[in-house]
């Protein structure tokens, strides 16, 4: 059963159609990359997948025991966060479920996430003093606290230098190998083809949905890649 299945999805943003007639599904263990130009409806689709935006028509179904609030989300950073006085430990723990305090199991989960991303030593460091790549790793650890099933990454390497980007991609790939399903939005199409298993190319309507190898050979894929070079 699919983790997420979208059927004839239509989304509107401020009265304008942002996404139309979109049907696709995400299987457990998949690595899906959503590509497209700016304004192609990627961000609106993310909001809908997170349940922050109601579809105009069509359905989004969550399956395989996944609840909508169990999507580990890595948002684009806001300017306010860059100088936020919080320790790494506090930020990561905020991905856990408070009711209203954190149970011991959740604290352990946060510690595991820190360990997994090699952040244990930085636990007491201040978030705003970290480099951009480290901050992304902290937010990734927080997302892992919310779920171990599905990560939704919104342009995760924006503003990072190539070396740090590559490292972040490697971490994401490792997580995927361990069974975490990945949905990544990116306009870096070369990286998408190299790493993702499935590609969804969006320009309001879906232009392509299928395996990454097929996309590289398809006409739309080639045009998009050449256009960017």
């Amino acid at each position, binding site marked *: 059963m699919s983790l997420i299945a979208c059927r004839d999805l239509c989304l509107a943003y401020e009265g304008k159609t942002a996404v139309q007639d979109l049907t696709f599904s995400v299987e457990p263990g998949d690595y899906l990359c959503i590509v497209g130009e700016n304004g192609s409806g990627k961000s609106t689709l993310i909001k809908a997948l*997170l*349940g*922050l935006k109601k579809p105009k028509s069509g359905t989004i179904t969550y399956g395989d025991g996944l609840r*909508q*609030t169990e*999507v580990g*989300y890595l*948002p684009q950073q*806001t300017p*306010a*966060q860059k100088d*936020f*006085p*919080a*320790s790494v430990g*506090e*930020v990561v*723990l*905020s*991905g856990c*479920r*408070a009711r*209203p*305090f*954190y149970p011991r199991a959740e604290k352990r989960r946060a510690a595991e996430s820190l360990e997994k991303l090699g952040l244990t030593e930085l636990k*007491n*460091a*201040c978030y*705003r*003093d970290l480099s951009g790549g480290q901050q992304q790793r902290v937010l990734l650890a*927080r*997302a892992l606290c*919310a779920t171990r099933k599905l990560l939704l990454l919104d342009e995760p390497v924006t503003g990072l230098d190539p070396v740090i980007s590559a490292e972040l991609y490697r971490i994401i790939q490792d997580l995927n190998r361990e069974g975490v399903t990945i949905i990544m939005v990116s306009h870096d199409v070369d990286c998408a083809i190299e790493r993702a298993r499935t590609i969804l190319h969006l320009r309001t309507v879906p232009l392509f949905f299928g395996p990454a190898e097929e996309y590289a050979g398809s006409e739309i894929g080639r045009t998009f890649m050449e256009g960017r070079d």
Partner: protein
Amino acid sequence: MLDTLREMLSYTFLTRALLVGTLVSLCAALLGVSLVLKRYSMIGDGLSHVGFGALAIATVLNAAPLAVAIPVVVAAAFLLLRISSSGRIKGDAAIGLLSTCALAVGVILISLSTGMNTEVNNYLFGSILSMSREDVILSAVIALTVLILFVLFYNRIFAVTFDETFARATGVRVGAYNALIALLTALTIVVGMRMMGSMLISGLLIFPALSAMRLCKRFRSVIIVAAFISVFCFFLGTLVSYLAAIPTGASVICANMIVLLLLTAAGRLRERMK
């Protein structure tokens, strides 16, 4: 020093003022950290102007000040939240509109009834004599409610302050927590306003948070240090105002300003030493 304190405490009105002031300073510091980090600090300023308008209405109606001010300011807080989340008018503009409107209405009402007198002056800049026994009890109840709710929802408030979108995506009812913060802020402002002055109360929200951020690197320590700084400055300001016979609200804000300047300078110095 101790004699001065003993002398101060022998006045009932001063004991009351110190009690209410301490509680208000604590609440304002806690809420202020969240407001400043969410870039909402102007909400305090807007609400205090609305509070002035409400006090003017109370004077005209001859009603109990808090009974009018609490519902009006709380309603204004929700209105501001609604406007800034609907995105039609930006938050800062909305606050500017609301606060000047409230001020204008207040001034018109006062000029039609009593005229500009000492009472109006007290509304604007505060009076340490303003607290009656009932006021103290009500203030204490509200302040304790704010403190308890803040501690209880501390983790959620952190999550919502740090990253609203992520919190919403993981099923936290962000709207409810924003409303809670706005409600608590409105209550704190109404309680503190008459002593500190409606033109000055918003400083209590902003100064301690900014001072604590110069010192601390963890959210929890920012909250705790802000609370300490706020109470310390309140006592210092009240003491100076007693000794020099100057208005308490203004004196407390000046104490806060000096602490912020000192901590900023110390921070700069520490950075240069590195």
